[in-house]
Structures are given as structure tokens and as C-alpha cells.
């Protein structure tokens, strides 16, 4: 409520202040015969105080000034003049004006300090986030760099002889470290793409089955010790999505599963066409494409499920490694295509990521006969 009112344009704020004072005054006018005019003064003060809670300082001062005039003109005898006959009423009028004025100014000041505190708080959360980024980044980037530098030093050192087998081992460490470094840079670039808002999906017809196998091929090395299953409907239609973004999304989810489930765990990819008939046809609400990536690992701690998509968020019990960017990129890329992503733990153990997209659909049979 407050925030809505605060966004009201300044011109409209003057209007609101004028209208509320006038309406309340007219209502009070009906009670003029039965009630003391001081009651009307109090009611107008309440109106000014209420306005001060929501509006800017100038519209509030306007309402204070206006209500003082109205009080004088309509409620202080003689009516319909700005003349005041006795000293008591003059004093009341002056006091009314001062109180209304002070009220407006003080409330405005309180709100200003409140706002300052809020920005301070936001700044400190940003600082925290920034520090978290620096922490995880320096760790994630320096670890592979150290591995590369160390391995090269050992290979180059002239006073020790390294067995051929160990040398090969070191070469393979260098390779792994570079791949890890590249993966992190990729994630950072994607994150900055999302942050700067330049992600504009290029929707094109996607064969989800092909997409799955393509990603799995790229992750072959990481999936060596996992059982991977793809279950897609035989007659799965084509969906209009951004292939590049989808690739990143599935890659990050499967990569995560491969890193955080024990050896031998099962990772399952599925895609279904969800032809939910929506009689009030609304293409934005129709989530035709539903993709799940699930595993039978340990699942996520229930109390942290809501936070896993947050930037830089890492599970409390998580092993070292990871910047906490992967899943937030997933969320960003899914939402860029108007989709939704949810995470749930399965009853039988493990977790399931469910992605649903309001994608256009095409049945391959319609064109394959040509």
C-alpha cells in the first residue's frame, strides 16, 4: 500500500491532498449543528497526519494550509468569512495551523531517516553478496590455476626425475584444471549476460531428444560413474525454445547432479508434451513443454530449497567447489524464455528439477510426409 502510494506522481499527490481535505470538510459540515467545531478541527488534523504518512512534504503542507483555511471559513464563527471574532478562536486557529504544519514536517523527517536506513541495509547486503562472490571466485579460479602452475613447475624442475606415468598424471591434472577454469569463466560470462539484461532468447524449433543427448555427450567425462537415463515420449513434438539457452540449462542441471551425487547414482532426464486443454485459451499460461532432471542422490535440505536458485547461494553442507552461480543461471535462462523452474525432493530419495515452458508446439508428422 505504502509503496504504491509513494509511486504516485507528484501532480496526483496534490490532487489527492486537495480531494481528501475537501471531502472530509464537506462531511464535517453536516455535523456542524450538533458537534463542537473543535471536533472538526481534530478530524482535519487526523486527515493531515494520515496524508503525511504517504505523500511528499509539499502536498502535505498544502493540506495543512488548506484545512486551516477551511476550518476558519466553514467552522469558526462567523461562518463564510476569514474573520475570527474572539481571541480563543484565533488562538485555536493559530495552534491548528502550527500543529498541522509540524505534523507534516516531522512525519516527513521520520520517513526520510527510514529510507536512509533502508538504503544502508541494501548496501550492506550488496557488500555481503560481493564478498561472497570474491570468496568463491578467488577459490574457484585460484584452485585450478594453482594446479596448473604446480604441475608445470614439477614437470620443469631439473633436479628430480619424474616417472613417465607421473608426468602423464600431471598433464591430465593440467587438462582437468583448464576445463574447470573454462567452465567457471563460462558461468561468469552467463551471469553477467543475465545481470546486464542482454539475454534475448532466439526462439527456434528444438528437438529436445537431440538436445539431451548433445548435452550428455559434452558431459561424458563427468558422467563416467553415473547411470544416465533419458526418457522422452516417442512422439515428442518440436518446441519453440532457444537452443543455446536450453543447452546451458540442461548442462548446468546435469553437471550439478554429476558433482553432488555419489558414484553410481542414477540421473534421469525426461521431457513430455503437456497438452493441457485450456478452454480460456491463453498461450502465456499453457505450459506445453515440461522437462525434468532428477537424481536418486541425497536430495536438498528442505529448509534450503527456496534459496538454491539465489545468486552465490551454496548449501551449508556442500563440499568445496562451485561458485553458487550454476542454478541461478538456470533460473535466469528459464525465466528469459517465460518458463518456470522448481525443485523438489523425491519421497524415495533424491531430487527433481522441473522446468515448464509455455512453448509453441509442432508435430513432426505434419511435415515429415512431404
Amino acid at each position, binding site marked *: 500500500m505504502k509503496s504504491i502510494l509513494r509511486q504516485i506522481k507528484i501532480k496526483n499527490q496534490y490532487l489527492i491532498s486537495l480531494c481528501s481535505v475537501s471531502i472530509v470538510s464537506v462531511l464535517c459540515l453536516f455535523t456542524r449543528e450538533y458537534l463542537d467545531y473543535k471536533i472538526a478541527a481534530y478530524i482535519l488534523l487526523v486527515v493531515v497526519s494520515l496524508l503525511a504518512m504517504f505523500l511528499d512534504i509539499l502536498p502535505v503542507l498544502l493540506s495543512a494550509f488548506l484545512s486551516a483555511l477551511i476550518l476558519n471559513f466553514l467552522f469558526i464563527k462567523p461562518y463564510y468569512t476569514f474573520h475570527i471574532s474572539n481571541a480563543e478562536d484565533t488562538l485555536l486557529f493559530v495552534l491548528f495551523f502550527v500543529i498541522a504544519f509540524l505534523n507534516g514536517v516531522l512525519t516527513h523527517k521520520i520517513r526520510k531517516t527510514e529510507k536512509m536506513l533502508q538504503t544502508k541495509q541494501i548496501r550492506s547486503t550488496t557488500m555481503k553478496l560481493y564478498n561472497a562472490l570474491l570468496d568463491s571466485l578467488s577459490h574457484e579460479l585460484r584452485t585450478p590455476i594453482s594446479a596448473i602452475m604446480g604441475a608445470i613447475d614439477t614437470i620443469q624442475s631439473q633436479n628430480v626425475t619424474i616417472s613417465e606415468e607421473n608426468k602423464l598424471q600431471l598433464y591430465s591434472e593440467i587438462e582437468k584444471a583448464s576445463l574447470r577454469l573454462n567452465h567457471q569463466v563460462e558461468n561468469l560470462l552467463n551471469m553477467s549476460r543475465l545481470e546486464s539484461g542482454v539475454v534475448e532468447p532466439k526462439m527456434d*524449433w528444438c*528437438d529436445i531428444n537431440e538436445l539431451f543427448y548433445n548435452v550428455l555427450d559434452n558431459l561424458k567425462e563427468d558422467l563416467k560413474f553415473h547411470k544416465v537415463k533419458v526418457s522422452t515420449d516417442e512422439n515428442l513434438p518440436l518446441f519453440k525454445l532457444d*537452443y543455446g539457452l536450453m543447452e546451458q540449462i540442461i548442462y548446468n542441471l546435469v553437471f550439478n547432479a554429476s558433482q553432488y551425487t555419489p558414484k553410481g547414482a542414477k540421473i534421469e532426464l525426461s521431457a513430455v508434451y503437456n497438452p493441457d486443454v485450456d478452454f480460456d485459451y491463453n498461450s502465456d499460461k499453457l505450459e506445453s513443454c515440461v522437462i525434468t532432471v532428477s537424481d536418486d542422490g541425497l536430495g536438498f535440505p528442505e529448509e534450503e530449497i527456496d534459496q538454491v536458485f539465489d545468486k552465490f547461494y551454496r548449501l551449508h553442507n556442500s563440499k568445496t567447489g562451485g561458485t553458487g552461480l550454476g542454478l541461478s543461471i538456470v533460473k535466469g535462462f528459464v525465466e528469459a524464455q517465460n518458463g518456470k523452474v522448481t525443485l523438489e525432493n523425491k519421497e524415495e530419495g533424491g531430487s527433481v528439477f522441473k522446468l515448464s515452458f509455455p512453448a509453441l508446439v*509442432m508435430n513432426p508428422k505434419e511435415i515429415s510426409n*512431404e
Partner: protein
Amino acid sequence: MSNPLEILIIDDEVQIRKLLEITLDSNGYKTFFAVNAKEGLSLAANHQPDLIILDLGLPDEDGQLVLKRLREWYKKPIIILTVKNTEEEIVKALDNGANDYLTKPFRTQELLARIRTALRNTNESTIEPIIEFGDISIDFTSRIVKQKDEILKLTTTEYNLLSILVKNEGRVLTHQYLLKEVWGNSYSDQTQYLRVFVAQLRKKIEADSNHPKFIITESGVGYRFNTG
């Protein structure tokens, strides 16, 4: 012994130049280098290399422009190296006449394979009437495709798609190019046709259509035919 093939490398990064020099020299190519667009264009004109490796991020000029200028007269293969791995950039480079592309970081084995393919394709001025790969053979004169001596039934569109892929073996063909060549100009953005027919073709010619060895997907760009 024939003269070693000459490769011009246009790249402003000294580390990449060093890496390419060692890799290519030890594989029997003769290399020479340019550090910017200006130098690259004049070296290409003076030396007439057998292949050019061009980095798109040059200090003095846009690599795409250099590519266009080279293609005004240079007919031999150009392979693009780029850190900009956006699909638009790659498709643009292929449209501007690049034979192939690799994004940095790249594997040198991959680069060598691409160089060999590109050089082979330019040396073969005529296409063999019969091409074989895996257990498949295509006879272009009779338009018959056989698998282990049995005739493989392909629709006309499937045959046209397969033959254009095979004839450009090793080369990335963009979605747009394939659609125009196989279906016609008005189909250039109808990628659904390509998706469906590539899937159908894979089911017929690949041993495992989920792990294709011949028709390789180049994400967001197009398809490449490998003889496996």
C-alpha cells in the same frame, strides 16, 4: 618431397601465435604470422598461403570485415578463431565465406583435424561418383544409397539433404544454407523441416541415432558431416 603447405595466422595474441607455431610446424606445415588486419591482408596478398587462420578480434579492424576483404580474391580455406562464441557471430563468419570456425579455448587436435579437412576439400575439385562412410555408400550418378549392399529407402528430401551434407564433408553448413539448398529460398527460416528430416535421416544411417557419428549438430549454427 613436395613443398610444405603454408598457413598464415592472423592473431594479435602472442601466446596463441606461439602455440600455433609449435603445433603446426611440428605437424609439417610452414607458418607465418600477422599481428593485425593490415599486416594480415598484405601478407595474404604477397604469399598466397594455402590456408589462413583468422582471429576475429583484431586490434585495428573488425575480423568479419577482414574476412570479407580476403574473400574478394582469396579462394582457399579460411578458418576462424574467435573468443566471441555467440551464434550470430559464427553464422555471420560462415556467411562471409569462412570454411570453418573454432572458439577459444580450442583443442589443438581439433584444429589440426579441421585444417586437414579444409585442405582436402579444396584439393578435390571433383566429387567422387561414389562416396562411402561406415557401412553406407552413396552413388551420386544413380542416386542410390546402400547400407551393407542393401538399398536404403530414402525420400527425395532425405536424399537431397544427405547428399549436400556428404558433398561438404567436414564443413559446417548453416541452417539457413541447408534450408535454401534443399527446400528453396522461401524456407530459409523454417528450421522445423531441418529438425525433422535430420532426425529421420539419423534413424536411417546412424548406428545409434541418439549418438550420431556422421551428422553432427553444431548448436545454434547448423550441421556438419563427419565420415566418422
